[in-house]
Every structure is written in C-alpha cells, then in structure tokens.
C-alpha cells in the first residue's frame, strides 16, 4: 500500500508540473533546447558506466535505463 500511495503522489506531482509548464515555445525558439548538453542524457556512455558502478556500490538502482544486466562485482 505504501508503494501505491507513493506512486499516486508521484503522478500528481508530475501532473502539476506539466500544467505549469504549458507555455508555448515556438519551434524556432527551440535552438537552445536542441543543444546536446540540454538533452536528458548528454553523456550516455559515461552515465551508463557511472550507473553500473553506482548500482554495484549502492543499494539503489534503476531510474535511468530499462534493461538490467550483471553486476560485474562481488
């Protein structure tokens, strides 16, 4: 039940933010947004390496990529 509550809270939170962010940005105003460093994952390989290490040294995992894999650690 705890999880369900958290899920719902999370969704409501997201929904609120989406509504706030409904300002219109014209396509030709999106130059800055199209820059590589403004993407959600500008350094995909670096981040997957870091995630791989962090998830083998911390209990938390996930949130970045979908599929799993081995740990390569003991």
């Amino acid at each position, binding site marked *: 039940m705890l*999880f369900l509550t958290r899920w719902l809270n999370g969704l409501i939170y997201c929904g609120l933010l989406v509504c706030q962010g409904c300002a219109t*940005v014209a396509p*030709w105003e*999106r130059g800055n947004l199209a820059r590589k460093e403004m993407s959600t994952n500008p350094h995909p390989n670096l981040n997957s*390496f870091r995630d791989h290490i962090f998830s083998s040294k911390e209990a938390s995992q996930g949130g970045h990529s*979908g599929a799993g*894999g081995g740990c390569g650690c003991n």
Partner: protein
Amino acid sequence: MAAIKADKNTALAALTTAALSLPGLNAPAAIPAAQIEANTSYGHYQESSNRMRVDVYHADAIIPLTDRIELAFSMDRDTYSGATPSFSMPASMTNVPKYKQKSDGTPASDVSYVDVIAAASGGVTAAGLTILGGLNGFQSFSDGNIAAQAEIAANKDLALTELQNTTDNDQAALEAGYQADQVLLKNTYEAELGSLNNAIPALTNQYHSQVDAVNAKLAAVPGNIDSARIMDFNKGMIQSAYAGFTNTAPIAGGGCAGSGASGCYEQNGMVIGIVQDTSNPIAHLHRAGNIADRALQYHSDSSGIYIRSLDSKAFSLDSMDFKAPINGAENPGSGPNDYWDILGFNTALNPTLDLGTGDCANYATCVAYQKVKNGFNGTLLLNSSFSNISAVWIHYHGYPQTPTDGAAFSMTLDNIRVSPVVALINEVNAYKAQLTTLSDAYNAQLAVLADPAQLARLTNNYTAQISALTANYTAETAALGQKYTDQSAQQVAAFNELAKQAAISLYSEILNSQIPTGTKAVQVFQVQPQETRTSPQFSARYYLDSTTLGISGGLSDEPDFLSNFGSANVSHEFNDKLTTVSAGYSLSSNTITRNGSAHSSHHATDPAHYPTDYAPLYETSSFNTFNTGIAQVLSKNTLFQSTATFTHQSGYLSNPYKYVYIRGEITPEEYYNLWNPPASGVDWNAITSLEVVGLDLFREVRPEQRNIFSLSNGINQFIPALDASVHFDYRFFSDDWGINSHAFELKWFQSLPWGLTVTPGIRYYSQSQAYFFAPYFLAPRADGYYSSDFRLSGFGDLSGGLTINKQFARGINLEIGAEYVTHSGSLKLGGGGVGDYANFNYYLAHANLNVDLSAKPLTGGKHSGHHMHDHGAPVPAGVLYGQMMNQADSIMVGYRYMYSGQSGSMQHGSHVVSDQTLVSKACDGFPNGCLYRPASMSMNMHMLDLMYAPTDWLNIMLMPQLVNMDMTMSDAIRPFADTTEETDFGGHGGATHHSNDIGDTVLTALVKVLDTKGQHVHVGLGISAPTGSIDAQESPAPLVGTTSTQVENSAVVLQDYGMQLGSGTWDFKPSLTYTGQVNNWSWGAQFSGVKRLDKNKYGYNYGDIFQVTGWGSYQLCNWLSASVRSVYTAQGDIQGESSKVHLITETVDYPGNYGGRFVDMGFGLNISIPEGHFADHNLSFEWLQPVATDFNGYQLERTGALAVSWNYSF
C-alpha cells in the same frame, strides 16, 4: 516530416527539425540517425587501499536501416579483480590466542593470534570447526579443557576407586564365608567317608594334592589367544595417524594410553601401535590406502610397529602383506644393509626397546627373528620361531628410533594373520589328560575300599550341597557385580556429563567473548580472481510521426552470473512536441552460480571429518520493471523530465560470496556434538538452515522478494548569458527491504571556444539500511534474513567530478572525465549510518570516442564513391599496415579482430612427439620432467585502427588492442614422483587459465615511396609500446592477514610466457609493402618484422619476428573481391628467463619452446561498398591455414587463424 520540409525554407526546416529532435525518455531521439554513429569507450574504477578495480571496455554503433528504422548494437566487457569485503565481525573477536595444532589435534606450544572466525574455505567440516583448528585450538579452550578434564578424570578415578574398594571388601567377605562353608561341608563329608572305611581319608588327601599339583602346572601355561584372526584395517581405522605405545604398560582393558590419533589401533582383540621413542615425542604410524581398503604405513618418522594381543596372550604370527617396494625418494634403500628387522618376544610388554640396538640378540626376551630385504612387496610368511610369541616389533634395520640422519624408508602392512599357539594347546591338553588319569585311578581305588552304592549316596549328597552353596555364592557375587556395574556406570555417566558441560562452557566462553555495546566491527576481505563480464546488447527503434517504438535485448555473462534481458518501450510526443510521455517494461532473467574454491584440502572431502554436503549453488531470479515518464519543455531554455519506475524482483537475491557472523545460530552444545559426532554422521540441516562456512559464519540470506519504487526528476536550464546549462537531478528510491535513498546531482555544462565543453558536477547520495542488515549479529533473527553487505548499510556518498568534451572536425568527439567518491557511514542524511569500518573511497575515470559519420565534409554535397579515398586495391584482412590513404586530412577508423588457435598433438620441429618424449626432454629444469602439456590454446585480439593522413605521403596509425587468451591444460602426463609433488603441483590437470586485458599499443608512420598508376610502395616505421601487462597470475594471491587488503606478494605465481598480454618491451616494427593493380586483378607483397629493443622488467624478451607475404586478388563484382595469399614467418625463441616466480610444470613454461618457422596459406574475401548508406565501408575476412610448421622446441599443433577487418574512411 517530408511534408514539413516542403513547406518551409531550408534554414527554418533545419532549425525545426533540430528543435523537434528533442529527446524524450527511453526513446531519446524522435528522429533516426542519418548515418552510422559509433562510440568506443574505456572506464576505470579503482577503490582505495588496493581493493577492487574494474576496467570497462565498451563499443556501440547505431545503424540507420531506413528512414524509420534504426538498429543499435553495443558490447561491454568488464574485467574486475582485487580484494572485496567478505564479512565483518566484532573487533574484540580478532587477535584471540590460539595454539598451533599438531596433526592429531593436540596443542603444540606455540601460540598465534587469530580471528575467532576461521577463514571460510571451500569445504567446511565438523572436525574443521572443532578438532582440526577451530574451537578446540583456542588457547583458552585448550588450557581450560585440559585442566578441567584432568580434574574431572581425577575425581572420577577417586570415586570409582572408592566404589571398587567397597565392592572388593564385600566380595572378600562373601568369598570368606563361601570358603568356610565349603570346608565345613568337606570335613563332614570326609568324616562320613572315614566311617565307611578309615583308609579313604588318606587316599582322598593324596588324590587332592596330586590334582592340585597338576592344576598348578596347568595354570602356569602362558595364556593363548583362542582363535585365528586377521587385521585388515578396513573398518574402524578412523584416524589418519596413530601415536600410541603398545610396548609399555597398558591401560585397563589392555589398550594403550591415549585415544584417537594419540592412541593405538585395535582390531579383533589385537592392538597395534608404535614402540615408545624417547627421542621423538610425536612419532606415529600412518593410515594408508583409501576408504575402501585401508592399510597401515610405517616410514621414517617413528620407531616401528609393535603388535600384541589386547589381553597380552601368546599367539602365532603366520603371515602379513608386507609392501616395501623401492620407490624414489620415499624408499630408496637397496644396499646390503637395507632390510627390515622383525623381532618376536616371549613377553607382551617390552619397554625401552628403542634404547637398544634393535637387533634380536640385544634383548633377553627376544625369541624370534626374521630379516626382510627392502623392496619386498607381497605376502610375507613368518618362520617357525614366530609360532609362539607374545609381541612383534617391526622396524627398519639400524633404526630402533626415528632416524635423525635423513634416512628414508616406507612400508605398508595389511592382512596380518595370527593364530593360537599350537605348542601351548598341546601342553594344556597333556595336563588335562593327567587329571583324567588321576581321577580314574582314584575312583577305581575308592570302589575297592567301600560299597559303591553307599559311596555314591554320600558323594552325591556332598556334591549337591557344594553345588547349592556354589550357586548361592555365584548369585550373591553376580548381584554384587551388578550393583558395582550399575553404580560405576552412573558415576561414569555423571562425570562424562560434567566433562561435556565443562567443554560446552568453554566453547560458550570463546563464542560469547565479551562484546560491549557498540564494539567496532572489522571487515575481512577476500581476493577476487580476475574475472570478465561480457554483455552484448541489441536494440531497434521504429519511428512513427510522433510516436517511437523501441525494443531491446541482450545478455550479460560472467563466470557466476548469467542475465538475459529484454525491454519494450514506447514514447509519444504531443502538444506541438513540447511534451513527450513514455512507458516501458523490461524483464531480466538471471541464473546465479558460484565459483568453487580452486584447491580445497583433502580434509574437506574426507568423510571421517564429517564435511558439509551442500549442493553447488544453482539459483535463478527475475526482475520485472515498469516505468513511465514525461519530458516537458517549460520554456525555450528549460526542460523538465520525470520518470517513475517500479521493479519487482523475485528469486535468489542474495550475494553468494557474502558471509555473516551470527552468534548463537549454532549453540555451544551443537558445537560440542560436532566435536563428537555420532557414527551416523552430521545432519547439517538439522543444526541450521543457513549454510555454514566457518565458525559462527554463514552465507548471507536475503528475502526472495523485493519491490522497488523510484522517482527520478531532472531539470535542465540553459543560461544564454554564460553559454552554459545547468542540470539538477533528484532521485527518490524506496523498497520494502527498508531502504530509502535520495540522490542529488548538479552539473554545469560550460561551453568554451575550440569546441570544448567542460562539465564539473557534484553528487550526493544517502541511503538507510535494510532491515536485516547489521555489521554482525549477536543473536539469530526470527525471520532468518541476514546480511552484512556494506551495500545494504546506511551510508552516504559524496562525489565530485569533471568531464571535458572536445568536438573535433568531421564528427569526432572525444570526452574524458574523472570522478572521486567518498563512501562513508557518517555521510548518511540524518546520521545513524554504519560505523566507519566500512568507509572507503574510489575514483572513476572514463574516456569516450564518438564518431558520427553523418558529419562528413560536404565536398560536392554527395558521396563520390570510394575513389575519393582510394587507397589502392584492398589488401587481405590478415595484412597489417598494408594500405595508405593518399589524400591529406583523411581519417580512417577501423576495427580488426584476429583469432588464432592451437590444439591437437605436440610437435618437435615438424614431427609429432609422444608424452614420454615431453616428460624426458621438454621441461629442462623441472626435476622429474614435464607434468602437463597444453591441450588447447586460443587467442582473440580486438584492435582499434585509427589512421590519419596529415599529408598525402604520410599516414599516422594508432592501434590499441584488447587481448583475450585461454589455455586448457592436459591431465598429468606422468605419475607424480611423490606426494610432495602431488601436493605442490597436483590439481592443475584439465584446468583452464585465462588472461585478458589491454595489449601492447602500436604507433606506426606509413611513408609513401612510390605511387604510379597501378603501382604503390610504402614503408612502415612502427613502435610498439608495452602497455600490455606481463603479470598475468595463475590464481589470486592470498591476503597478508584476513582483515587487511595487502596482497602477499611472495605468493604471486605468474602464468606462462604465452599467456602474457604484452611483450613488456618496446618493439620496433618496420614493414615494406608493395601493391599493384590492373583492371580486376591486384597483387601485393610485404616484408615486415618485429625487433625487440630490450629485455623486459623480468629479464626476458620474446623472439624477433620476420615475415614475408605475397598475395593476389580478383574483383568478382564491384563490391566483392577474393584473395589468395601465402605467408612465411620466422620467430626466434624467448631470450632469457623470467625472474619472477612462474609455473614450471608445462612445456609452455620454458623459453626454448617458443617461435619457429611457419608457412600459411590465406583465403580471403573483401567487401567494399562503393555507394549508398554504407559507402566507404570496407569489410574483409581471411582464414589462414597452416601449411608447414617447424617449431623451436616442443609446441602444440597450430590449427589456423582468422582475421576480420572493418574500416571506414572519410
């Protein structure tokens, strides 16, 4: 999209397209790549204090198949090694005094300081946890137990003696009454006989004195065993050694003092031990043979074998299996004085034999003697002097005591046959005949003197009275005996219980050492052998107008963990592409096994030690993950995104290498029962459901279900004034193991001139601990879940890092970065983290090379086919440095894979040789010749080809490479010379050795010499840098101490020369290449060589190489050509010898068994795509088949080599 483009001018269309390519989540680009994009990256992870290190190699490529379908492949390879925490325990349980153990489990005098928890090993036994160095070895136990047991035994003796005395007094009174009554009856009877005839009393007196005289002689005949017996040692030979003395005073019951390995071996009423050796307190006999057929062994560490009967009766020694074959170092003697003395004695006990000369003539009681030549190997029949003896002593001639002069001998005894002494039987029978004669004569004389009827009446009456009296006496004696037996049994039981409780309380004392609240924990490390994880992955995306569908799949394979995974996701853009929502599902299915320990001791498998019998680990788990996310453009400079993820994990979620210390899971009483296990064996599962790995040490157990929720949020803000953007991310994580975590990350992307982007970042992470985590457990948990894995503790991580990104011309992007992380219990949010024992630091370093082929120069706006980068006709894949780019500023990237294999028979020169030849000739320097040979070898090389042409006559080429080698060893090709050799070098048979990591890196300059129409010559001048390691180890070296991470360097053993990843030397690599082409035909030739410039750090260098090759190829169609090539290679053997400790048992361990002269034929195909998506890509394959071989020394047959090369130039 085509519709949009048509409506607007080109610039706006480009801008719009770029703008609309805003990434979503899990489907990051809404527009497929236009050309191939590839990445190769390297990551390094290193923990402080010489702990774990990981190297990660990664390569990926995105390949657009059509405008809407995009494929991506990636490959990851990690190698990891080093020391990792295995468990933690209270600090007060370290450095506890412990005796060194003698082989029989009794303490020697030296004390060492160790952890209470014995190091976990591959095999745990009841004996190991108690008698063989576990609990019984601790000084407090040894001292306390010896004292307590002695006191209890003394009290027991006292009580039993008192009981015995009382019983003896009662018995004496009973006996006296019985005797008196007998005399009364006899007197009455004799008076009655005298009244019949007054001559009868004298006659009777005379008769009785004669009978008494014969009975006295009968009683003087020595005792004799009552039946024939065999001692075959097969049952009950529990101990591996026996150190008891059989020639000195026995204990009650006839055995020898001492029990277990300190005692003697008994079978069928006979007892075997050693002659007390006053010069050697630890002299002992050995158990030989296997569990199905045991035998007794005597060699040069005792004073010989001494056999007698338990009740010291005489016997006849008839025969025995006496095996003393001449055998190398163990039993070499074959001279005139090399024989065995067998002495027979007429007394069962003969103390101080070892102080004599060992010869029969030297001992007054020696009555039998036989000499057995060393080398005798069969059934020995004893001479007739052994037909009447009371003890036997067998020893090597000249050694009545343990040799101190280095003499070596060995003999095993089995099936010792003894029988009753015939002469003694005859003697007894003669006396019995005399008694019959006397009795007959007496009865005949009586019949003359009196009326037989009256005589019979009186005699019958008398006999009946005596019988009644005797019956009464017997009954009373029996009752008294029974009473004594019962009482003494009670006493013994009471004292045994006392002894048991004393031992248990001593066990408790050690196990429950005082641990004040908050006692610090100490981590114990284990060295992890170098292992490799390989993970290929595949994904595909299908782009609809505003929806993207993606699937991916892959696997991750490491020696103890196999994971297969797949995912599907969808993202959808709407709200004029300002909003992207996504959802996905993924599944991982895992198989978990455990690497066994390499060489577990024989103790671990000996049933006599009651080993644990857990099945090898084979478990599975599965992870189901659902995620949903949204990315929202908030303004022209702001992007927000959020992802919620739910994961359900089920199955085996424990870490199979982590242990936990749990006090009380096995109680002291259970340990006591393990010390004295019942004959039926130990039922480990009845003691604990956990897997026992050491004293109070168990494998961790985690719940089999885990539900995880996490929410990741990020906001990206562009700051136009600074030309920078800032990212802030926060992730909340919660699971039903009680772990909540928060991760905050802040990154600043600063654009600088020259295409540079610098990104400093900080990250803070904090987690609470799992509910079943503790550094150590002082009581069992009701739910049975335990973990001391630091990853489940409460802690925080604080890290800072910097990434630098440089965009080069032509779509090449290089990124390097490093990050330093501090892991500490005190960094946990809100405090209450785990103690500082688990703190450590680590750093990450990373480099990534990205090549985006869509960013080609726009010369002519169109591909001009492969003529633009014409570098002559393609050369076969196996030819290195064979091609030049002839246009300044050209760049080529490529990947080359080379495989070579060896298996089959061993060859010397070009001839096949037998294993016998190898043993005698191929391992010059190993005392008894080669023990193993290679059974198969394979080498895989992955090379990155990077080539740049600064001018049209000079190309610079850089070739880093990754090398992976395997070698499987044969079983032993000869018997082991002795047990020492077997102990030192056994256990390698059939083993496979691996090595893999970065190899040497070659930098080459190619200089054009001649370039006319159809003819081309260039010179290559290369240098190979020793970036490859020459330290590939046989197996992980042990740690200096269990709580330290310092590796014991003296224990490092290197693999053979052929398994090293680099040469260790700077090498000069010149080459000269000629190529020609007319129409569809092309040809070429190359001379190349490798010259080692020095010896490497271990004092050797590989042989120089000279190679010449020639080829011809024919263009079958405009994209395909085929080639035929021949190659001659000559390589010298290894110069010098490794100064480092390395393996020495195999042909490959010797420098002379390297190099040779070889001829190969190559058959190749080359695919060059002239135009379209894949224009300027070149893919070629070549198989090299050995044709002729002339090896230096002794080497394994070659089976062929494969080369695959892909390159792309632009």
